[in-house]
């Protein structure tokens, strides 16, 4: 790690030069990521007449909420959002609880277990779902969990656990073991070391991991498509995908409104953890 320090003449502050280019790049990202969302927003407030006018304006001329009302009425959005939230929250809690100890063990203990576990983690993560879904369907049918939200939670837990585990153990491995040793030297107990040294440093990784789990459950479409047939148990993606079929005769406004409503719960989730994100994962510049 130690290197011979060469006496190189100091340069002027290196950051200043690149600034304009950095802002240009940032602007490009903001447009690419943001414009589709903005367009979705404006489309949701447009009347069918506006949408069909030969000279479309970007902003709607009137602020009308007909599309939202129609979308809620047509597609059972509120109910579906409840189903989605239920499944995603349950899955996230379970996955975080069981992956934290496992991730620590995988990162820190050098036993045969590590290789075996990593192998399974990788395998179960990367297999095409088509191979899993047919037998899974039969298994869940046997234990009566088809058309059941707990069946979906079970599948999502198993399905997002491996990657959560892999992500987390990577973050644990990134924490220098010397820190823990130093704690042990100072006489801290195992639990104390985990609580005062490992967990705080693991914060960003833990946030990233539970975020990943929540979002992937919230978004999942394929398993739900096959496992949930009861309209009352449909998750949001299922309801919306069904709604797309009705798009043909320019119900674009309603479709946009439904999509917008459907993203609200998870955006609220982001708002809740925004502070945690800002202080941890997304905290600012490299202090230099």
């Amino acid at each position: 790690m130690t290197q011979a320090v060469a006496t190189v003449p100091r340069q002027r502050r290196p950051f200043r030069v690149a600034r304009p280019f950095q802002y240009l790049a940032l602007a490009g990202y903001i447009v690419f990521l943001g414009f589709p969302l903005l367009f979705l927003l404006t489309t949701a407030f447009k009347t069918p007449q506006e949408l069909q006018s030969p000279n479309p304006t970007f902003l709607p001329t009137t602020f009308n909420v007909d599309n939202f009302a129609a979308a809620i009425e047509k597609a059972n959005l509120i109910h579906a959002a409840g189903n989605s939230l239920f499944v995603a929250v349950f899955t996230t809690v379970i996955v975080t609880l069981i992956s934290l100890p496992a991730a620590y063990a995988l990162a820190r203990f050098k036993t045969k277990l590590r290789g075996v576990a990593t192998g399974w983690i990788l395998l179960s993560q990367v297999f095409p779902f088509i191979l899993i879904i047919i037998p899974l369907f039969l298994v869940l049918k046997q234990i009566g969990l088809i058309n059941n939200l707990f069946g979906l939670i079970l599948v999502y837990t198993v399905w997002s656990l491996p990657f959560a585990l892999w992500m987390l153990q990577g973050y644990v491995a990134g924490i220098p073991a010397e820190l823990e040793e130093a704690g042990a030297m100072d006489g801290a107990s195992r639990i104390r070391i985990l609580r005062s040294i490992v967990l705080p440093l693991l914060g960003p990784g833990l946030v990233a991991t539970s975020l990943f789990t929540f979002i992937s459950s919230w978004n999942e479409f394929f398993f739900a498509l096959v496992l949930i047939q009861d309209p009352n148990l449909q998750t949001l993606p299922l309801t919306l995908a069904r709604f797309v079929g009705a798009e043909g005769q320019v119900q674009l406004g309603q479709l946009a409104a439904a999509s917008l409503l459907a993203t609200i719960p998870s955006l609220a989730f982001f708002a809740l953890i925004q502070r945690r994100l800002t202080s941890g994962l997304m905290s600012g510049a490299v202090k230099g």
Partner: protein
Amino acid sequence: MTATVSDAARRAATPKGTASNPPKAPKRRRNRGYAGSGRDAWLLVLPALIPVAAFSVYPLVQGILLGFTDAEAGLNKVVTFNGIDNYTQLLGNELFWNSFRIGLIWAFGVTILQFLASLGLALLLNLDLKLRWLARTLALVPWAMPPVIIAIMWRLMLNPTYGPINGAMKAVGLPGDINWLGDFSTALPAVIVVGVWAGMPQTTITLLAGLQNVSADLHEAAAIDGANTWQRFWHITLPALRPVIVAITTLDLIWNFNSFALVYVLTAGGPGGQTMLPMLFAYNEAFRYGNFGYAAAMGNVMVVVIAAFLFFYLRSQARSRLS
């Protein structure tokens, strides 16, 4: 608790395969020191391992076996093994080859573009720029949207008549009449762009979390030694990020190869099979035509491709251990 640093702890801190830590220890000692025992490790991993074994390992094995049978959706049929019949049928099927080719173009196209875009964004977000909060928020938003909704949104964007992309082209005097998702030549590039948009947050967040772990002290030391931004990126940031990069890129590649929902809603595989990803092909076989065995056979072919991706990943892991 003992406060001594055991051999095991030191071993844990040294990379595998170095002289101080031969890969195979001749005999297993019970370490009671800092790193704990193998039994502790088992106990910690158990809650995660049991559900995975029951609900993914078992179905996996079943799924692979189904690929060698004539299983169909009908319940009253006796399932019999038919050896490699499914595979000879697949290899003689032009639609299979088309879907295979499309799947590879899609997987590599999305993964490479996504990685480059995400690395750039992660580096920018790691700087102290004005408006960073906006980019940060926007970088998270696609992640909060189900692929189904992203697909709906981009259908609006790409709509040949009402879409803003064609609108903007018209405004600057270009022929703004392209049916992006309906034309043979533009459908696949269009869905690839949507794929990049949809997958960027995950890759960006992973890289950003990795960047947070890059030692600021090293950067400071290098800056004092006169290294410029580019040199510091190349010699400090990138090597530190390497494990994260290799892992997330490999996973992105496999996930994209396996992807389903986004393209299912965007084009359902059309026009004329131009966006018929392997999973769409397999889904249609299984749940449209009820050919479970044939669909599972397609799954097995996908497994072979994925195994190739993983082989390169593991090889790169091995190489980085040696260096």
